């Protein structure tokens, strides 16, 4: 008796993991959306324009380049939409609309399709696009919008917290002991949300534990600060990352190594700039600012251009963390995460070569096999 339906006969295995290229990409896309919407909410409709321009042009270029490469329309797999959204999220909210279009063109056309499309790129496409426009239109790329809830003083009208720190450190000699106190001394404002939430947090939760949170962190955590559209909301980025980790779409090795190494160096050396001592760096401030969370979870941990073995991923994450620290504290750019990740992308093939998987039955150091 033959079964009268088109039954599939395939090689083993006969079933597969829940993750497919398509649902990985769309999961990442939907996990990015809350942080993107937050950017639109606090920076206004110009941010929405930037996001839409980036998304639409990424989709269009994907379609065109796939045609050029003689492939079917690959938009269903969602990877172009992830790239487009990420490109938009890394840009300041008020850039002219040709900037996201060129960023998407570089990301999709040069970084992705020149090397053969999905999975073939050796650096993160959105970061590549960001880097291209960052050096092409430096002025537009460093003009920031002040967010909703934050009164805008003229003195600091166009800088992110990290940007202010960088110029301050270059120009001044004597600084207040911590980044937030320094910002306050410049007249960097504090939102009414922070003014309400910080005392409440301290009184109801932290004081019984013997901790006191200075004001300003709530703004940084929620994302009430000037910055790129998608990078500001630490809270929403962390929340969606929990989902990706739970679904095992994101492997925790790279973020863990990244935060570990970056946090360690910031903690040890971060206080020195302010004339402080070793082991006084403000780790929390540096994790919440400068697009670090967006960079770590959605760019460093991006599966395509990062190493494949666990050891390789730990090396990659550590390297990116260390480079971010170097660039942020001793380099010209205030943020550092994007450049550090791109630099590590370059090393990915080398790391892969140096950390091959260990074969079953291979002799283990210190535990030789004895043959009787």
């Amino acid at each position, binding site marked *: 008796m033959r079964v009268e339906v088109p*039954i599939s006969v395939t090689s*083993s*295995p006969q*079933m597969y*993991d829940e*993750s497919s290229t*398509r649902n990985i990409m769309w999961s990442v896309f939907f996990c990015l959306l809350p942080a993107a919407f937050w950017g639109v909410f606090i920076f206004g409709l110009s941010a929405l324009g930037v996001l839409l321009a980036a998304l639409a042009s990424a989709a269009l270029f994907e379609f065109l380049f796939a045609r050029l490469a003689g492939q079917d329309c690959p938009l269903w*797999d969602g990877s172009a939409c992830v790239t487009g959204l990420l490109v938009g999220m890394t840009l300041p909210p008020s850039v002219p609309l040709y900037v996201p279009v060129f960023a998407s063109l570089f990301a999709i056309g040069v970084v992705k399709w020149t090397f053969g499309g999905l999975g073939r790129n050796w650096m993160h496409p959105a970061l590549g696009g960001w880097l291209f426009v960052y050096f092409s239109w430096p002025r537009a790329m460093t003009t920031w919008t002040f967010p909703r809830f934050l009164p805008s003083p003229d003195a600091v009208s166009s800088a992110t917290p990290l940007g202010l720190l960088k110029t301050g450190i270059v120009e001044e000699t004597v600084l207040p002991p911590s980044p937030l106190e320094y910002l306050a001394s410049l007249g960097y404002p504090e939102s009414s949300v922070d003014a309400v939430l910080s005392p409440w947090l301290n009184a109801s939760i932290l004081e019984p534990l013997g901790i006191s949170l200075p004001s300003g962190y709530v703004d940084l955590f929620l994302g009430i600060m000037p910055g790129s559209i998608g990078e500001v909301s630490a809270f929403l980025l962390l929340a969606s990352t929990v989902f990706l980790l739970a679904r095992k779409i994101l492997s925790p090795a790279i973020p863990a190594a990244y935060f570990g190494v970056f946090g360690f160096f910031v903690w040890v050396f971060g206080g020195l700039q302010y004339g402080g001592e070793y082991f006084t760096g403000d780790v929390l401030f540096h994790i919440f600012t400068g697009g670090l969370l967006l960079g770590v979870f959605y760019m460093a941990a991006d599966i395509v251009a990062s190493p*494949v073995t666990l050891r390789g991923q730990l090396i990659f994450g550590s390297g990116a963390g260390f480079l971010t620290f170097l660039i942020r504290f001793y380099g010209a750019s205030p943020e550092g995460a994007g450049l550090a990740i791109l630099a590590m992308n370059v090393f990915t093939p080398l790391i892969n070569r140096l950390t091959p998987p260990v*074969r079953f039955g291979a002799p283990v150091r210190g535990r030789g096999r004895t043959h009787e």
Partner: protein
Amino acid sequence: MNILRTFPRGGLRPREMKSRSLGRPLRNAFLPSLSIVPLLQHRGSAAECLVRPRESVREGMLIGRAVGNDGSNVHSPVPGVVKSLGTITLPWGESSPAVFIELGGEFDCIGKPAQVYAWEEFRKDKLLALLAEKGLVGLGSGIPTERKLALSPGKRVKTLIINGMECEPYLCSDTRLLIEKTAEIMEGVHIAAKIVEPLRRIVAVPSDKKEALAAVKEHLRESCANIELMPLLPKYPLGDERQLVRAVTGEETVSGESVLDVGAVVLNVGTVFALYEAVVLQKPLIERSITIAGKAIGRQENLKVRIGTPLADLVEECGGFTQMPEKIVMGGPMMGWSIADLSCPVTKTTSGALFLTSREIRSSRRTNCLNCGRCIRSCPVGLNPVGLYKKVEHAAYAEACSEGILDCNECGCCAYACPARIPLVKEIRDGKLALASAAALDRGEGV
């Protein structure tokens, strides 16, 4: 706290899918009106047919005699008349001569009290001869058990491991056997131990199969037998011989060696039960327990099935299809074979028959490799599956060989984990076949 052992590298936890069939006790399936008995059910060469059409056969009668030193006996699973002789295609694509037997006549075993033989008096070579005579093969591997247990001189066995892992999703007939036939299986362990004389006898059971663990523990407590029960942290493919030995003893076999080289012999639960029946009841291997599962079948069941029962009979017995299956799988979903022909019979190595819907399979469109490395991180052997895939695709077989393609045991972790749905196992298998036929050409054997 006692840390559960498992193997260290790779592996994964596929969707287990056992909840619906695990609680269902084993029961006897109906006898098939037409049995299709292949004469090649083991690794080796096909048995020599001893019957002719229209000849009547009795239950358990020898119908195929082992040929050469890699053969295995085949017995008639049912009483009846040989309808015809023919050739069928086995699920893995090999063709085999087969005997078609129409049910009829008198039953010799069913309904009669079985005679129990005192195996303690048998010598080692008598036991081995009995296993060969009764056509016993590994119910997973298909390796004739007598050949596995007949140690070449100089080999010593440190550990005899009874494999109760049953790590493939869906399948639970071994776990049911452990629960329901505990005493018989433990007696089987002692018989095997008499043959290989190990220092330790270990029964390995996954730590989450509480009922089976409790049954074995209870039996061991009462009988004070010299058997250790070892719960292991479940992970696929822990039922693989090498990985199991690694988990239990900590020793890894070197490429090209067998587990016997590190002093281990592994038998799975179903094989030990068959061994008990072959020795104590002197019953040939004519039935085995299998799991019928999948969302497309009416009732998921654990059945004791006669060898040679066509799948169509089992489908009917389990309530037919509730919906059309997307795939029909012989064996487990990770290493089993999908087939399109319901006349395919249950053989000695069939551990289950699965009727899977497309929702259970989660197939998806093939895309480019994403370089995500899931295949590499999931490989228990420490290979680079996608690297091997590319080598085979470009016919760079020698390079694939030096990167260990022959160590792949096709467990399926890589292709299961691959989000791009690249047929890694298929390509690696093709590469191995190409290497094997090249080696055969070198020896001047032709293909």
